[in-house]
């Protein structure tokens, strides 16, 4: 690609370089969530879990480059595909070429936006992988990621970031600045959380999770160190992610960027503090995995509103997210019989929706709250049924669930032929003799 061929886009060289640098740091969030997914699963499935995360990133990258980016849209000469309803244009599909043809002629800002979307679909697709841990086949996990990257995500990305109908709610219906999702709360986290719910419903719970009699069995994650280090990686990645998103989608000035990063940190910190206190009061000691979930929920909620809220409001958003997370994890498992090893539904789905609503509450524009509500309604009422239907059909051709023998011996041995920790020897506890 010849950089000289890129036309001027209104973005200065310094801002371009800063945004690109931030986008190169943002994958740390993906690495963090991948570690959390692996740590919250069982030791006998750890290698399969991490290989799955890497494979899903690879699959989404290839599929999004092949077809997804064309639907998301990047060509400057056209505005995408739209229809007229009630005298308003409804732009529902983007315009582009297969395998990014014509991409080099896009403006610098559009190119950075597409890079952002490459990272976003990789992030969104690894979220359900954690929820299907210990029972979801690698091949069908990759197939589901391909389906997301080719269909649902490009549509949503175009509606939210590509000038689609959700982004145009402000122009067409006087709803603030249109649906705002600078850090990917909708297109990454809520989409990932909804996909996780679909996977959990289709694949079913892990063997022995819900016995015939008594309460749900606790199946704790095998490595709390992975989980907590993943939280720190996710913090670095999300700060870069939200700051890059503020530049690209909110057109924030440079002076507003430090506050965006601080808001991200404040939201996560408030959430961790709230979860720490709640689990300390409830169980007598703070729970490491729930605290990690709380921290991550704070980061997720901040992805919608870090560029719009004040530091005080961001702290409030984090506190609410941190209070809700441990309670939701318990309710989902005990009352609703949902086996979600990584907590994706309470962290990414509920945290993302809370962040989107908070962005509407705290944004300065009139009508923004309603725009955010319409976005949430679209996610729940259109994106979720579509995702569930596609995954249900996919399950007919590539069954999601591994056979019972594979689940018994662990996904590492069954799918990869070797474990993640070959020098660990599992033996009987001598004290029981």
């Amino acid at each position, binding site marked *: 690609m010849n950089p000289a061929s890129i036309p001027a886009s209104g973005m200065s060289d310094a801002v371009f370089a800063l945004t690109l640098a931030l986008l190169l740091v943002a994958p740390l969030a993906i690495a963090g969530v991948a570690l959390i997914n692996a740590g919250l699963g069982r030791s006998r499935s750890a290698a399969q879990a991490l290989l799955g995360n890497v494979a899903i990133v690879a699959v989404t990258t290839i599929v999004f480059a092949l077809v997804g980016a064309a639907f998301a849209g990047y060509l400057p000469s056209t505005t995408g595909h739209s229809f007229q*309803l*009630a005298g*308003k244009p409804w732009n529902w599909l983007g315009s582009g070429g297969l395998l990014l043809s014509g991409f080099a002629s896009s403006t610098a800002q559009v190119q950075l936006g597409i890079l952002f979307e490459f990272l976003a679909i990789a992030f969104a697709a690894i979220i359900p992988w954690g929820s299907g841990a210990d029972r979801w086949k690698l091949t069908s996990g990759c197939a589901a990621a391909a389906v997301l990257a080719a269909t649902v995500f490009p549509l949503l990305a175009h509606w939210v970031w590509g000038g689609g109908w959700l982004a145009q*709610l402000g122009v067409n*219906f006087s709803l603030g600045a249109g649906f705002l999702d600078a850090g990917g709360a909708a297109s990454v986290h809520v989409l990932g959380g909804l996909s996780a719910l679909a996977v959990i*419903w289709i694949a079913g*719970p892990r063997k022995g999770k*819900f*016995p*015939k009699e008594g309460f749900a069995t606790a199946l704790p994650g095998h490595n709390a160190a992975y989980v907590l280090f993943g939280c720190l990686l996710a913090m670095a990645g999300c700060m870069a992610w939200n700051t890059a998103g503020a530049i690209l989608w909110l057109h924030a000035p440079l002076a507003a960027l430090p506050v965006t990063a601080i808001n991200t940190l404040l939201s996560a910190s408030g959430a961790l503090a709230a979860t720490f206190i709640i689990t300390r009061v409830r169980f007598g000691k703070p729970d490491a995995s729930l605290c990690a979930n709380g921290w991550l929920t704070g980061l997720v909620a901040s992805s919608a509103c870090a560029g719009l809220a004040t530091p005080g409001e961001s702290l409030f958003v984090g506190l609410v997210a941190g209070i809700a997370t441990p309670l939701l994890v318990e309710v989902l498992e005990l009352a*609703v*019989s*949902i086996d979600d090893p990584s907590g994706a539904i309470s962290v990414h789905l509920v945290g993302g929706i809370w962040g989107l609503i908070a962005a509407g509450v705290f944004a300065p524009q009139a*009508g923004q*709250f*309603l725009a955010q*509500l*319409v976005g*949430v*309604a*679209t996610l*729940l*009422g*259109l994106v*979720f*049924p579509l995702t*569930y*239907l596609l995954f249900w059909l996919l399950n007919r051709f590539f069954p999601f669930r591994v056979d019972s023998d594979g689940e018994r011996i662990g996904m590492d041995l069954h799918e990869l032929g070797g474990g993640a920790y070959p020098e660990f020897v599992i033996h009987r506890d001598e004290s029981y003799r």
Partner: protein
Amino acid sequence: MKLAGMLVMTAGFFLAIAALVLFPDPAPRTAFVLCGIAVECLGLGVAIRSHMQNRGESQS
């Protein structure tokens, strides 16, 4: 049952979109969008209920 829940959720989405088109005033528009989200929650509840029934049947 789960399919019915999904259809109800989709109906809620179209209710929210209809509110945008039919009501120019902010108050009724907001009320109808909230109604649309409430219908979606109802559909989600039906789908969750179906999931719990299936779990109960597979356990017994």
